[in-house]
C-alpha cells in the first residue's frame, strides 16, 4: 500500500466548505489559540519568576579521591500531577494530549520507573540500629516477653528513633489546619499531597474534614559515605577481646 496516496495536500485551497473542513479549521484555530496562550503564559511566568527570585538548592558534591560520595535520595513523587494545576483551560487540552500519547498511543513509549537506591535506605537502617537498636527490637520475639519488659525497652527505642529522625530529617505537616477541621480543596489541589477519600462525587472544590494532617520531609541530612562502603552491614558483629 502506497502511503503517499493517503497524504493530504494541505496547501490545496478548499473549494467547498464541507463539514470536514469546518472541523479542520476549528481545530486549527483552537490549537493556534492554545499555542499563543501558552506562550503568553510562559512569558508571564518567566517574568514573575524573576521577580520572585526563588532560592535554588545547589547540589553540593563532596569529593573524596575524585569520587563523589554524595548520595541523593530520590523520592518518586509524580510531579506531573502538579503540572496540571492552574493551567489555563486551553492548556489542559494540550497537556492531556501529551499524556494520552504516552498512555494510549498504539506503540507507547516505555514508562521508566525510578528504582529506589538501596544505599540510602540501608543507611537509614544503619542509623536506626546504631542509635536506637531498631532492628534488634523489631526482630526480637515479642511474644516471649511481658508488656512491662517491652514497654521498658520501647523507651530506649523511641528515644533513639526520635533522635535519628530529628538529626537527619526535617519534618513538616502538609495541612496547616488542625485534624478535625473542615477545609475546602480548590480545583487543582495537589492530589499527591492530599488524598481524598469517602464520598468522592463531582468536581472540585471538595469540602471535607482533615483526618490526618500528613507529613512531608523538608530537609534530609544523611551522612556521606566513602566509596566502597558496605552499606549492607547494618551493625557489625561485636567481639570483645
Amino acid at each position, binding site marked *: 500500500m502506497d502511503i503517499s496516496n493517503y497524504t493530504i495536500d494541505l496547501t490545496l485551497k478548499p473549494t467547498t466548505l464541507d463539514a470536514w473542513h469546518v472541523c479542520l479549521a476549528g481545530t486549527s484555530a483552537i490549537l493556534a489559540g492554545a499555542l499563543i496562550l501558552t506562550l503568553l503564559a*510562559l512569558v508571564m511566568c518567566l517574568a514573575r*519568576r524573576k521577580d520572585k527570585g*526563588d532560592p535554588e538548592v545547589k*547540589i553540593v558534591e563532596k569529593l573524596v579521591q575524585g569520587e563523589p560520595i554524595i548520595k541523593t535520595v530520590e523520592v518518586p513523587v509524580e510531579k506531573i500531577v502538579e503540572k496540571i494545576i492552574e493551567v489555563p483551560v486551553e492548556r489542559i487540552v494540550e497537556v492531556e494530549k501529551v499524556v494520552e500519547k504516552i498512555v494510549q498511543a498504539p506503540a507507547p513509549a516505555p514508562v521508566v520507573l525510578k528504582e529506589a537506591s538501596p544505599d540510602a535506605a540501608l543507611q537509614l537502617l544503619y542509623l536506626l540500629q546504631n542509635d536506637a537498636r531498631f532492628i534488634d527490637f523489631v526482630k526480637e520475639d515479642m511474644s516471649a516477653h511481658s508488656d512491662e519488659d517491652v514497654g521498658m525497652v520501647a*523507651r530506649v527505642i523511641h528515644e533513639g528513633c526520635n533522635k535519628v529522625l530529628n538529626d537527619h530529617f526535617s519534618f513538616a505537616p502538609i495541612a496547616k489546619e488542625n485534624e478535625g477541621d473542615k477545609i475546602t480543596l480548590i480545583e487543582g489541589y495537589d492530589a499527591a499531597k492530599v488524598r481524598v477519600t469517602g464520598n468522592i462525587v463531582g468536581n472540585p472544590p471538595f469540602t471535607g474534614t482533615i483526618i490526618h494532617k500528613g507529613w512531608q520531609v523538608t530537609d534530609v541530612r544523611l*551522612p556521606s559515605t566513602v566509596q566502597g562502603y558496605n552499606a549492607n552491614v547494618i551493625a557489625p558483629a*561485636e567481639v570483645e577481646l
Partner: protein
Amino acid sequence: MSFFEKMKKQAAESSKKDDSKKKGDEAKTDESFETENFDGEPETENFDGEPETVVEESKSQEDSPAEPMEFVTSQTQISHSEIDTSEGRHFSVGIDLGTTHCVLSSADITDGDDEFSQQVMGISQLTSPSVVEEKLQLPSFIYQANDAELPENSIVLPWNAKPDLIVGEIARSLGSKTPIRLVSSAKSWLCHAGVDCKSAILPADAPDEVAKVSPFEATKAYLEHISSAWLHLHPNAPLSQQDLVITVPASFDPAARELTVEAAKAVGLSHAILLEEPQAALYSWIEQTQGEWRKQTKVGDVILVIDVGGGTTDLSLIAVTEKDGVLDFTRVAVGEHILLGGDNMDLALAYTVKAKIEKDGKRLEPWQIQALTHGCRDAKEKIFSSDAASVPLVVPNRGSSLIEGTLRSELTRDEVQSVLIEGFLPKVTISDRPVSRPRGGLQTKGLPYAQDAGITRHLAAFLAKQINAADELDGIDLPEGATFLHPTAVLFNGGVFKAQELCDRLIEVLNDWLRTENAPEARLLAGADLDLAVARGAAYYGFVRKGKGVRIKGGTAASYYVGIESSMPAVPGMPPEIQALCIAPFGMEEGTQVELPYADFGLVVGEQVRFRFFSSTTRREDVVGTRLDYWQDEELTELSEIEVTLDGEGRRNGEVVSVHLGSAVTEVGTLELLAFSNKDNGKWKIEFEVRN
C-alpha cells in the same frame, strides 16, 4: 489572506510538528516547554510546592533531550553546608578549642559595615568507619586504632584520603568501647605542671604497643582538622588569611597559652589571637543582646562569669567602669584551673544508680556503668525540665536480644537533688573553703582533678581571695567589713547550666552571701547560648578588634615572678632563702614590654640557667622589679621552672654576659620572658620549662 486561510496554515504547521515528533525531536521542545512553564507556576495556596527541586530537573532534561518521557520525580536534596567558592571574602573566625568539644563560628566581615551575623560551621568528621557527617561540634578526642581493627580505606575525610590521626565523633565512639586507645582531655594536660607537653604521653594508661601522642600534637590535630574542614568549605578563603581568635581557659598559665599558639602556628595559623573563654562568653552575650547590654549593665557592676564545661570550671570577674562617658569592661580576676565539670556530675549520678542496683546483688560491668552515665545525663535533663518524680533508666543488653538481660533502674528527683545540688552546689557560707585531702602516697600519673566537688566552695574561695580585685577601679566600692568581692551580675556558660535548678541554686547561694553583708542581690544576665557561646564570642571579638564594639580590657591574668636565691650564709638543713622578683605585673596589656634594668645576672654563653617561676592572681599592686622576701603560701603559686640559654652567636663559649630580665605581652596574648644584654642590643627568650 483570509482569516480562514490563516487558520488552515497554522493547522498545517502543527500537523507537521506531529510528524516530526515521531522522530523524537518534538520531545525536547515539548518537555522543556512544559517544565519551564511549570517553574513559573504560582504555588498552590494551601500546600507549598518545592520549586527549588524542579530547577534541577528542567536542567537535566534539557541536557538529555533524547530520553523518553519519564514520570517526573521530585528529588529531595541531601543538605550539606554549601561550598563557598566566592573570592576576596574576609571572615572573622572564632575557634573554641574545648576540653571535650571544639566549635568554629565565623562571620563575613568583608564589607566592613556594622552588621555582624555569624554562623557556627558544621564540621565534617567521621562518625563511624566510612561514614562522614557534619556536626556543629568536633569532639576533642583521638583514637589510636589497631592496624587490624578498622576496614581498609574506611578512615577518609573529604579533604584527606589518609588522615594521620582519627579525630572527632568516631574517636569518641570507638574510644567509649576501647578506652585504652582513646586520647582525651589533652587540653587539661597542657596546663598540667610537671608534665612535658611535647612528649608522647597520651593515652596515659595505654599498653606499650599503642602509638602515643603528646598533648601538644593532639591540640595540633584538632586545629588541623578544623582548619581543613574550613578550607574544604571555603576553598578561596583559607583560615590562615582570616582574622582568627582561639579561646583558652582564663586559668591557663603562660606555658599552656604559649603551647596553644605554637600548635596553631604548626598548622599554619600563625596569626591566631588568644581570648579567655569567660571573656568570650561575655562577648557572645553582648552580641546577642544587640545593644541591650547598655541597659542591662551599669557602671559599678561586677560581672561574675561561671563557665562550667565538660571537665573544667573557669571563673572570671569583669568590672564595668566608665571612661569619658563610655562604658568600659575590665577583666579584674580569674580563678584557678579547676578540673571539675559536667562529666563529674553524670559520673556521680551513675555511681549512685550503680550502688542502688548492686544492693540487689547484681554486679555491673564497666560498659554498663558507662551506659548508665550516658543514661543519667539524659535522665537528669528530663528531671530538671519536668515535674517527674523519677525517670526510668534502662541499659539495654549489648547482644542482639534487647530485652533479655536488660538492666533497669530509675533516677529519682531526690537523688538528683542530693547528688547534684547538694553534692556539687552545696549551701555553704562565704568562709567555707574547698577541702583538700592529703594525696595518697601512691598515685597513678594522671590529671590533678579537683578533690572537692563543691563548686560553691571553690566559688567562695575565689571571691574571697579576689576581694581587692577591683580596688583600683572607680565606681566599685565594697562596703566596710566585706569579706569577699560582691558580684552584681552573673553570666553562666556551659551545657551544665541548661538545668535551671543548678542556675537557681548557684544564684541562691551567691545571694545568701551577699545578703549577709547587706549587699544587693546579683542578677542573672540571661540569653546566652550555653553550648556555642564561646566560639560565637570569639568570632565577635575578631569583629570588635576592628573597632566595632565594646572591648573587654584584659592583659595578663596574673603577675609573674622569678625566684632568686638570696646571698646568705648557708644554714645546714635549711634550703637557701628565696626571693621573688616581679618581672611581669598583673594586667599587663597586649603589645607592651617592661624591663628591670637593675638586678643583673651573669649568664655563661652556651650554658643553661634555670629559674623558679611563680605567679600570683592577688598581688596586683606589684610592679616590675618588686622584690618579695616574704609571702603567704596562697599568694604565690609555683609554676614549672623556666630556663634561659644564651646562644653563642658572636660570642665565645664560656664568656660571661651581664643581662637583666624583662617581659613582653605579645599582640597574640602570650607572655614572653626575656633576658636583655646590659652591653648591647642582645635579647634572649626565656623558655617555659618543657622537661618533666
